């Protein structure tokens, strides 16, 4: 992915702000990366390089961490994040059907972001609401008992809200 000059500068700057108040013990690396992702929404290459410099380790080690753990993103998320639960209970109650519905309405595959960066689609393993299966998490809200029709409805009300606010489609 190609980043703009502005994005590169911002990533490096924010990372320096985060590492400034932090020791250089290797044990602090993952918490630092988590903070970067909290601030930027993802962990871009310039941020990894900056973190590597702070901890005095090769950048490839940081890359190894970022790619090992599922939580870290290498690309920016959409403005809204849809995470469909793919845990046992949700799977047995049709979680994959919900995922396919989203893929169909958003015209992207799981792990991708729509070209307008409005939505990104992710999978999660059990958010701990198995009793409401199938479950999805939109931004920070857990929504239970999903159906394909509810997926259509969610997208529709989202577009409606955008129209009201005058966001160009």
């Amino acid at each position, binding site marked *: 992915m190609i980043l703009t000059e502005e994005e590169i500068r911002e990533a490096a700057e924010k990372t320096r702000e985060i590492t400034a108040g932090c020791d250089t013990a290797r044990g602090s690396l*993952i*918490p630092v990366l988590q903070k970067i992702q909290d601030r930027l929404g993802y962990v871009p290459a310039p941020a990894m390089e900056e973190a590597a410099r702070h901890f005095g380790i090769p950048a490839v080690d940081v890359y*190894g961490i970022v790619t090992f*753990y599922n939580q*870290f993103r290498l690309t920016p998320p959409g403005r809204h994040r849809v995470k469909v639960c793919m845990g*046992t209970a949700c799977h*047995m109650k049709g979680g994959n059907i919900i995922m396919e519905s989203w893929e169909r309405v958003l015209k992207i595959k799981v792990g991708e972001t729509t070209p307008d960066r409005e939505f990104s689609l992710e999978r999660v*393993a059990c958010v701990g609401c198995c009793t409401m299966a199938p479950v999805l998490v939109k931004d920070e809200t*857990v929504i239970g008992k999903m159906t*394909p029709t509810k997926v259509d409805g969610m997208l529709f009300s989202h577009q409606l809200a955008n129209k009201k606010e005058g966001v160009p489609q």
Partner: protein
Amino acid sequence: MSENKNASVTLNTIRSRVAGDWESLKQKTLITVGSATCGRAAGAVEVLESFRKEISRLQLDASVIEVGCMGHCYAEPMAVIYHPGFPGICYGYLDQGVASRLVQDFLVEGDPCVEFALAATGPNDYIPTFEDFPRGTVEQKHVMKHCGFIDPENIDHYLAVGGYQGLAAALSMSPDQVIAEVKSSGLRGRGGAGFPTGNKWELCGKAPEKTRYVICNADEGDPGAFMDRTLLESNPHLVVEGLAIAAYAAGASKAYFYIRAEYPLAVKRVAKALEQAAQCGILGQSVLGTDFSLEIEIFQGSGAFVCGEETALIASMEGRPGLPRHRPPFPSESGLNGKPTVIDNVKTLSHVPFITQKGSQWFRSMGTPGSPGTAIFALAGKLVNTGLTEVPIGTTLSRIIYDVGSGIAGNQTFKAVQIGGPSGGCLPKEVLDTPIDYDTLTRAGAMMGSGGMVVLDEHDCMVEIARFFLDFTQKESCGKCTFCRLGTKHMLGILERITKGQGKPDDIDLLLELAEDIKAGSLCGLGKTAPNPVVSTIKYFRHEYEAHINEKRCPSLMCKDLIAYYILPHKCERSCDACVGSCPVEAIYSDEDRIKVINQEKCVKCDSCMVACPPQYKAVVKVSPPDEVVRKEKVEQ
């Protein structure tokens, strides 16, 4: 240790700050709303708002607080109303309308609206209590006793119900005495393997190195289990107390919570609990006024299942990829930063305060001789009453499924119960009457694991569930051991082939052979147990594998490639268009007689039409194999 005798005195001083005991908090009108993740997903936040709005509109003298989850997740959103002159009454399936009505009818006019009541919290003449239901006769709540009743973000509530007395009791003993007590209680780790907890602490306590750590494992990675989340969200202080006792016994002055990234609310509530405990002098330089000092920090996991394994967990805390390593040395000898480290599961630690307070004999009075105490299970899947339960170890599966879970939902029949997640297995109805503990489950081909139970009915395909777990373990394998990395991939490939109807006759034997190799060739529990879901389903449901392979048929009508949707013409009520409207890909059309027909080419098998078709017609059916449609069409003509 004479100073430590004062711990109880200090605790009493801290407790005297609290307005009074838990009973006196309920003298005034009090509404508690369950707002753990399960409640929130069902709309608890809106219900909470309605209660607050209505009370302030009517200017009533009542308080509304947020509590955790009492385990009856199926009935969320839930609330308990304590109103003077009435027993505490628990209401379920609430919405905003019912919430406003309860305020008006009950608090203003004195009608408790029993039609919405689930149960009362104490004995009375007109509403049964939770204990009066079959569920109440099976359950024995100790760890979960206060979950869903007290405010998890308010230490005063925990103190009011007798909190931190287990810690005070432990501090009045020597660390060796605490270890001896836990050892004689027979407490076994609730995180999966069932290792005796006291022995682990002893090993760490005896280590020559004086810098030691204690870690609470809250990485709950089993995709279908939520016990640890509920405990941390509903009563975090209990776990903090258990962790403090473990640290005291093992001689550690630094402890950690390792909490899964997907549990933001648990992180928030534990952080708050730690802050409050430190403010009261329960944590910090001088714990409860003694010379024992303890600092506790939170470390957030980053979403890797293998990090639940203790050596991988340590690697990730050290800022490295979470790869397990060979044991011995065990973490109790050489763990975090090479120092002796005790790692215990959330549930294990939650039992500890009761043991130090009530004694090992009391603990041994529950459960089986080999596995004393109670166990917490998460019930999910096709049950009527899903949620959490705490029962003595040795309870039979059928009592849990039928008495606690109220049986299978939607009048379907029980097929299997999946226990222990990706490390466990599927057990059929023949095993339902076995008393379950660590050893009986392992013998049956499953595993206690974390305590997640997913109940399956006849619409659930056993090959598909095995494929699902293999897909999970294959993705989560850290890649260190060849057999785990490639073996699971190979097994997954075979299972995918079978669920697509491309299985070969010798596939079952090949799967069993691979299973043996993966078990033998893997370093950690992930690989060693990964084949369990496949082996157990072959053992008990071999006929389903054979139907997929030999007849290209999915008997449970679940595997997408082996089924088709079909509308029975004689059942279709022609004037109804429900299915047409529900189809997201416009695959359904009306023929010349206005009977609805599915265009099989276009159909994405999303199930919408089957749900949309009104229950009085039930015209949409699934058939397997798919060419059954052609046969049916011929018959109809």
